[in-house]
């Protein structure tokens, strides 16, 4: 009983704040459009290339057109911040810059990561996922020692909803995107068109 009172007293300010603060899943400005993803479910993403400039399937083909720019202010590991700038192209590829605002044992704050990726679709599940890959420097005193870092970002959403949830998975070593991750970190936020 005593413990219950202690918990209650400790949680009271937190609960008041939580109630008053913005609901992380809520989008009070009613901007719920993904502003992307108007392709049909039958569209496929059969292009293995992750960088539009690398698309060498047909050297004579015109480069994909830029179709949108997005700035995502993401919650990073729930309690911290990160920013993701995305440029989307007509072939559903992306280039992106990720800027974490918090250091962990696998990533350093304020060191921008440049990468590329694409949209993958799940027509039977009415879902989509933005995937990007980044290379990063070794993290001093971190989990991977002197090894450079690889990061796989996967952000999910259902239908055309703009709220993306997923993660940034860190792997030890350059160009390493498989095997046991060093750490899975959480990301979430709203995908909105950059002004």
């Amino acid at each position: 009983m005593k413990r219950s009172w202690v918990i209650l007293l400790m949680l009271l300010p937190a609960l008041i704040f939580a109630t008053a603060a913005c609901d992380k899943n809520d989008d009070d400005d009613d901007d719920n459009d993904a502003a992307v993803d108007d392709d049909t479910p039958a569209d496929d993403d059969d292009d293995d290339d992750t960088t539009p400039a690398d698309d060498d399937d047909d050297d004579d083909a015109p480069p994909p057109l830029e179709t949108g720019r997005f700035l995502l202010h993401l919650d990073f590991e729930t309690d911290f911040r990160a920013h993701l700038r995305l440029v989307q192209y007509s072939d559903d590829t992306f280039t992106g810059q990720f800027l974490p605002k918090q250091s962990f044992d696998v990533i350093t704050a304020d060191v921008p990561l440049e990468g590329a990726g694409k949209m993958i679709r799940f027509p039977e599940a009415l879902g989509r996922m933005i995937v990007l890959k980044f290379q990063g420097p070794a993290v001093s005193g971190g989990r991977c020692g002197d090894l450079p870092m690889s990061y796989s970002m996967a952000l999910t959403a259902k239908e055309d909803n703009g709220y993306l949830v997923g993660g940034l998975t860190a792997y030890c070593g350059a160009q390493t995107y498989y095997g046991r991750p060093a750490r899975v970190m959480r990301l979430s936020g709203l995908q909105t068109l950059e002004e």
Partner: protein
Amino acid sequence: MMKKRIVLMVLLLTMLVGATTAAAQEHKYALSVFHFNIQYVIGGLYGFVPLPVDYPLWEIGPDEAEDMIVIESFKPILDLLEDHLDWTLSLELQAYFIEVLAERHPQVLTQLHDLAQGGQVELISFHYADQLFIAFPYEDWRRSNERTLDVFAEYDLPLSGAVFCQEGQGAQGMARRMEENGYTVMAWPKNLWKYQYGEEPAKPYYTFGNIHLVQAGKGVDDAETGVKTAWTFMGDGELLATGDWDPYFPWFFHTNNDAVEEYEANLQSLVDDNYVISGIADYVEDLIDLGIEPDDPPNLLDGTWQPGSTESVSMWLGRGGLWRKDERDNHVRTLCMMGHKELMAAETAASVAGLDYRDTLDEAWRQLFMAEVSDGTGINPYRGEVEFTIASAAEAIRVAREIIERAKTALDMEHVLIDTAAGTVTAGEFFWPGEEVAEAPLNVTVKAKNREHAERWFKLSDDPETYRLEIAFTAGEDKEARENRITFPGSGDQVLTTTALIDDEIRTYTRSDFTFEDGHFYMPAPIGLVGLGGGWWAIKDMANVHLAARITDSDPDVSFEDLTPPWSETITWIFYLINGDDAQALALADSINVHPTLAR
């Protein structure tokens, strides 16, 4: 002759007295289940309480949270046993716990190893991560258990024949899989029994398929056999050594020596009263050796250990907890099913293309096990736990899709249909089968709080009569829009579904046999299939809707409800309805959820 009769009578009397003495002879056992969960706060505690100022002790990551559990709550139980060579305590944990010990607490692992080899610890483990395995196809658990057995073999840890699971999950289908994998005794939570059939005295043990079952947590006092049991502990193992504090409160979550000593004194008093401090498997082996026969249990539905407070599995498949506004049960669990499907497809595609991605796929499955951890959707998940399971599922799916793309490149195919049942990859593109029909074949009731909704029916087949039902919910009008429901009309007295880990059999229960405590029960429907009666079946398309099926003990209707949908998002549920026999219903559910064909 008279003398002979007297001798005979004396002999019979002696036998009778002997028999009476034998029946009265007591067999006393003190049993326990310390359910340890290294993923108690999966992902750590960042942001657990969104205060405007940081609470340093709350700002801890996954490693710190795991280490805290090992040091403050797990090791003290091992230390307690060091002084009692003839005591056995039953410690249940996921195999991932062992990996954490090996990586960061090797001395504790050595201590555990020695105690387990010496018989002082009965090590119980049935799944790699603390997954809600009763809500997913058998294949997911099969791979999880395979990894579990590998981990225990790698560290030379003896695995008990007893089984207890995360959230006390119990399912009749476990009996066959336990037997196949060398497990012998199911520790079925007493409340999951009582919630369905009411209170009655526990028998020493029961049949469970071809193996056995005990009512975990319920003491036996059986005059007929003389068996008495006392459960000295059954609950979250983390709580005993910390005096009931859990890892959500790091500054209080410390070893409380008084609590440990009190427990030790309780055990000693039982020893003084001739109780054996025993493991569960040893207890049942003793009963068998004594010639005591098991009873038959009633026809139990799959569920979890505190169904009264969690309304069985609904807390993990649709119902919200303390932080309901941050929950998104259907998103998390449908994403897990997308992971299942994508991995099944990747396995098939890689095999057909002749690519060896065994290790890569195994790791992706491991990520899926992390995604299936129960705490992503219940009991009271905070946002960090919800998002950790989503992040894990997303990475598993990302890896699986990359392997599919590589297989397509190797096969020189652009658009493929990957048939995971047939193990084939053929050219083809995605399409939704069936023609839209104006008239609904069944009178379903859809309700949504502060949202609009629209239903569309598509006919897939005349024989058997098969439909796809799409329910499109608009984004909500406000934050109150967190209640979506559908009710299918039912008929008859039979409850029909599948049991966890057996995906190809219908289990039949008699509705009127149940005395549900709350009048209703939520079933996980692990391949999506629930009977409606009259030949009709509803099948969740589990990549779009994965919620518990609500039944009652009086009304044959079946409902699905989500009290956690993000209010600002559109949501589409998809169900399949079929009027057919068991085999046809099973085949359709299998093709949608267990062994799908994916267009990639």
